[in-house]
């Protein structure tokens, strides 16, 4: 975000939508609630951009015989606030809740959606439990999860020559899951794990001593099983200690274009990471990016923000397909219809939703360009490898989702 007047006005305009939420739900109006982090650490990943992407989807969907309204709110990364808002929204006639980053909030909202029998598409959480042990008939998990990130980065990296790993792991469930899954894929692909260090989360800001330990292990790849500011700090300090210059690759297990932008190419160059979307991937992604850019306030879309575009579009298609009244009547039926019809949009191309609620799309392994290779704004990635949609995610039978057996 910025200090510019225009942005300020845009924010004001976005906020002006709020009173709409108090309007009575109308029979012929479909309401989408974007619930995300507008004021905390995950703001730049989706936040206002996620809202803008959703609105763009609605605009492109156009008039199809029913009205569509988009409202949004800030869950402040508090599960009780998120669950409370979700409950209120569903009761006020919101038909879909979208986005919801932060696993604890994402899972809590999933419970509410099930209880209210309303549709819920999560695009922002990383926990693979959403389509595993905690899966619900009303929930779709649209974007990345820990399994997909681990698989893409772990196996594709080994194929690209990075066959010995050292893990720098944030010492909590998310970090452990990433480390465990990635290590499995590294071993499965014929690589070796030389060691790992688990550092306390979230209080660590100096990673230099762990990086020195990682370097002492002589591993070719340092896998960063962390996210956000931790990853950025690690990369910054790895550059400072000349670790990347000496041929060690850094593999970020959860990182977005916005993070690379924050680091700058000078520091981030050579970094390897996984995303499901990159604006410069093909003609379709470039086209959708061109349409989105005027609404994004200078930032470029990443997989988390653009997932809201893709998800909202597919949701609206399903609504049209089964009729507004039927869509409003049952979230389970609505989600079943979403699973039944094929997905296709400019951001992720053709795809589908599995019975456990997992949206399938390919994942891409990218390497961050050097400043010399970069030709323009946000020209940051080069493609290293692709995991096709069918293989990118956890196999159906391994998730332990109760919907799979029935």
């Amino acid at each position, binding site marked *: *975000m*910025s*200090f*510019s*007047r225009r942005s*300020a*006005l845009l*924010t*004001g*305009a976005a*906020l*002006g939508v709020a009173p709409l939420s108090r309007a009575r739900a109308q029979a012929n109006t479909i309401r989408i609630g974007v619930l995300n982090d507008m*004021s*905390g*650490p*995950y*703001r*730049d*990943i989706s936040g206002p951009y996620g809202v803008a992407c959703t609105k763009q989807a609605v605009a492109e969907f156009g008039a199809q015989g029913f009205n569509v309204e988009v409202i949004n709110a800030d869950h402040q990364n508090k599960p009780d606030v998120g669950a409370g808002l979700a409950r209120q929204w569903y009761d006020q006639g919101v038909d879909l809740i979208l986005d919801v980053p932060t696993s604890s909030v994402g899972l809590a909202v999933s419970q509410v959606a099930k209880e209210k029998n309303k549709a819920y598409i999560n695009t922002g959480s990383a926990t693979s439990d959403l389509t595993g042990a905690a899966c619900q008939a009303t929930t779709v998990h649209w974007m990345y999860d820990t399994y997909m990130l681990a698989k893409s980065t772990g196996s594709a990296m080994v194929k690209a020559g990075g066959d010995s790993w050292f893990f720098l792991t944030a*010492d909590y469930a998310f970090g452990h899951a990433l480390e465990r899954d990635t290590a499995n894929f590294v071993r499965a692909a014929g690589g070796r794990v030389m060691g790992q*260090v*688990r*550092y*306390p989360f*979230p*209080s*660590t*800001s*100096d990673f*230099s*001593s*762990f990086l*020195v*330990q990682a370097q*002492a292990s002589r591993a070719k790849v340092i896998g960063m099983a962390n996210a*956000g*500011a931790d990853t*950025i*700090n690690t990369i*910054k*300090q790895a550059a*400072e*200690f*000349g670790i990347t210059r000496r041929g060690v690759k850094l593999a970020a297990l959860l990182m*977005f274009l*916005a*993070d690379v*932008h*924050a*680091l*700058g190419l*000078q*520091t981030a160059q050579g970094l390897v990471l996984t995303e499901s979307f990159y604006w410069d991937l093909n003609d379709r992604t470039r086209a959708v990016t061109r349409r989105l850019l005027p609404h994004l306030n200078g930032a470029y879309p990443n997989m988390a923000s653009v997932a809201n575009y893709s998800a909202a579009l597919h949701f609206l298609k399903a609504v049209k397909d089964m009729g507004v009244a039927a869509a409003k009547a049952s979230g389970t039926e609505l989600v079943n219809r979403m699973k039944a019809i094929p997905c296709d949009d400019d951001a992720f191309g053709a795809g589908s939703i599995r019975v456990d609620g997992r949206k399938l799309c390919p994942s891409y392994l990218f390497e961050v360009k050097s400043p010399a290779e970069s030709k323009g704004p946000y020209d940051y990635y080069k493609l290293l490898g692709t995991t096709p949609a069918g293989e990118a995610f956890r196999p159906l039978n391994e998730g332990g989702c109760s919907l799979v057996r029935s």
Partner: protein
Amino acid sequence: MLDLIEAYLGVPAPLLFGQLLLGLINGAFYAMLSLGLAVIFGLLNIINFTHGAQFMMGAFAAWMLLAMGTNNDAGLGIGYLLMFPLFWLVDAMTLKYQVSRQMRALAFGVVLLLFLPGLMVSLPGIGPLASVIATTLDLPTRIAAVLAWVFPNGLGYWAALPLCALLVGVNGVVLERVFISRLYKLDHLYGLLLTLGLGLIIEGIYRNKFGSSGLPYRIPAELQGAWDLGFMFMPIYRGWVVVAALIFCLATWLIIEKTRLGAYLRAATERAELVQAFGINVPRMITLTYGAGVALAAVAGVLAAPIYSVNPQMGSNLIIVVFAVVVIGGMGSILGSIVTGFGLGIVEGLTKVYYPEASATVIFVIMAIVLLARPAGLFGRA
């Protein structure tokens, strides 16, 4: 010999030395931040909860100075920071010439008018009207334009060190004059609550304006590269951080312990009324002390900018640890905060080798032990 050490310690000696050194560097940040807290606490009796936000402001100000030639937001940020000296000037002048209350209010009103419309534009609901005014009459916007014209390449690290200290320090001075000075007659806990609130506001504003994912800031060209110490590669910048922190800490200590000004300060800490009776302007001394403590935090922020992620929450993560450091050292003890800062950095570094999972908790465990043995802290007076 090295083998012997290794056999004893269970860790390769080079690794151990490396970690001790790195711990010392972290300690440098702890020392500088806790020193600022100690200076403020000594005279104001306030635990400055805004300290983390001010550390963050220092880092952000460094980025703004660097980027102001190309980035409109950065220039605007500096423009807003420059409003604070203006405030202070009006405050000081009106006090000096003892103008009437009405005149004083009028003067402040004029200053507010110079930037408030532009600020309001970012608030929800007031947008359109204020934006018209803002485009014609908004000082920070004008300043940003001038700055971008004068410094197309921005101002680098070496200029940022003193400038950020000044900008953020003066910001602190105004905070003290406007808010904190109203609380001296109340329980000290109110000061804590007030500064906590101010910190939340500052952090929130920065997150709204600059996002949460952080901004790039590079190591200055002169300090890039690393020394090969045999047992590890030591980035030159890290060495500079330790040296700089030591210089700032020693300078602060010397000023407080060895100069006349320091003598006044210490006297005012003991008995402010008496010092005032000798004709020394104690309120102004308090204001400047707060500014100086804040400036120390800002300098630490600039030092941190090239190696840590420059984001709005960078200070709040660090500050709770620093509070623990202050409790261990003994609140208000200058030397105590310096020594404990560096010492605990080393202890934490060692923990990172032997039991990394506990490296965050170790400082709090030490705090508990110290409290049991010496409730006033290692260097504190009971």
